[in-house]
């Protein structure tokens, strides 16, 4: 695939990813991942010193589904919504036929009082694959700068 078409496909996947979350269509969010995916939301502080503890760590699409079910039916939190802004996408080929993508993100959060605040910023380090089911994340590592999480984190980043 020529690099421009590749860049376009991966941009579209990232756009679908953030719209799915920001539009609160979280039930569709796991479908953007492969079945044996890794989704990890880890602080830059831990990542930089090789410490493994993450805020969220899922190593299967089924775990992503469990996160969504928990968010919908078990967890208690103030109503809130996100707005993602993604930029500075870089794409690379991997030898195994997958692609690496790196991009910056900002998540603004709006709570019931109507105030929008910068909730979380960081970088997406993704490994992306394509097959007859389309373009999907095999790995998504969310490395966040905002080490001090405000109140709680329930919606995926």
């Amino acid at each position, binding site marked *: 695939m020529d690099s421009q078409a590749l860049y376009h496909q991966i941009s579209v996947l990232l756009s679908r990813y953030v719209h799915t979350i920001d539009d609160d269509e979280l039930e569709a969010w796991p479908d953007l991942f492969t079945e044996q995916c890794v989704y990890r939301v880890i602080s830059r502080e831990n990542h930089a010193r090789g410490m*493994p*503890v993450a805020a969220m*760590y899922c190593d299967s699409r089924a775990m992503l589904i469990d996160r969504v*079910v928990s968010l919908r039916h*078990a*967890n208690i*939190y103030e109503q809130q919504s996100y707005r993602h802004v993604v930029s500075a996408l870089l794409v690379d080929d991997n030898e195994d036929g997958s692609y690496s993508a790196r991009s910056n993100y900002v998540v603004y959060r709006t709570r019931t009082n109507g105030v929008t605040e910068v909730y979380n910023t960081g970088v997406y380090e993704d490994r992306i694959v394509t097959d007859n089911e389309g373009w999907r994340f095999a790995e998504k590592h969310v490395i966040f700068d905002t080490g001090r999480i405000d*109140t709680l984190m329930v919606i995926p980043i």
Partner: protein
Amino acid sequence: MTSIVNATTNPAVLDWPQTDEGFAVPYDVFTSPDVYAREQERIFRGENWSFVALEAEIPNSGDYKTTFIGDTPVVVTRDDEGGINVIQNRCAHRGALVCRELRGNAAHLECVYHQWAYDLKGKLLGVPFRRGVKGKGGMPKSFDLGAHGLDVLRTESLAGLVFATFSDEAPPLADYLGPTTVAAVTRIFNRPVAVLGDQRQFMHGNWKLYAENTRDPYHASLLHLFHNTFGLYRASQQGASVMDGDGRHSLLYTRASTTDEAVDREIYKDSRSLNSEFRLQDPSLLAGRADFDDDITLVILSIFPNVIVQQIANTLAVRQIVTHGEDGFELVWTHFGYADDDEEMRAIRIKQSNLIGPAGLISMEDGEAVEIVQKAVVRDRERASYIAMGGGRAEDAEHLVTEGAIIGFWEAYRQQMAAA
């Protein structure tokens, strides 16, 4: 005529309502800046020991970590003899922070402002231009390096947990903690631990709301619905709420009915009530291995005033409270395992970390609980809460339907905050 200004009225001294039944906490305790200021003196700089670090965070000579006791910045260092020092993070010269990073390694501590340099025990080593430049300036001839070190706190460790106190009068650490607390700490810290990472969570509420929350087994199955929703609650579970240190400290624990690892694994992975609507698509989240010889699967040990030691399934962590005024605090979660964990055990702990912390499937609600109280108790400062579950007294219980340990906390707090 009565004077409007009563000479004995001190806004930092609380008026605790007397109740015939139960216990009442005046809401002023959560909202008053005067009360907060007094707490810094009476509680955090009073005759209490505050948690500051795990020894495993600073294993090597020269390692240091910056943290806080209440809102006072301190540095925890490992010196050249392997000793641990807790030093107030304020230059003896003009009051600047000496250490500005979260953690690091250094041969000595140096203030960037005028490069006053201290050893890892806080002793002043030297000051630039002490004898002036070309015969001009310089410190007075009488200047004594030995008289201008950093303020050093009394420091003691228990099984790898480092505590410090500003007080000369505080009893030795083990006496302060009490036998139940010491036993609960040494049960978890029975061998060298390995830090797995930190998580930081800011809650927009008074720190004592979290002190209440972690002494409150009543809310556990009512607010934290993860286990119930997925039909994972364990009917076999028994629990208890016991106090130590005259009620200051609280130990909540639950035990499984079995210590058989195979059975335990089975219960964790597959137990679900028949009428539960949902089931985990990936039960590996809760797959675990027995960590201890006993059958205790959950421990929430709240040590007055600023730390919680926890075991929830295979997650081990300390949660340190750092106060930020009367209406905010930071909770620093330090996750750990054991230095001798095999690869599988390490993987279990990392995966189960999904349960705890600011995004924890069974712990995130505590942030919400703290904030909905803080938002509601504004203005009506003279009103009070009502705490009576389990009998309304600071008593231990062989069950979890109690708020006794919350009252134990408040009685200790009230005594320390009382006038004179």
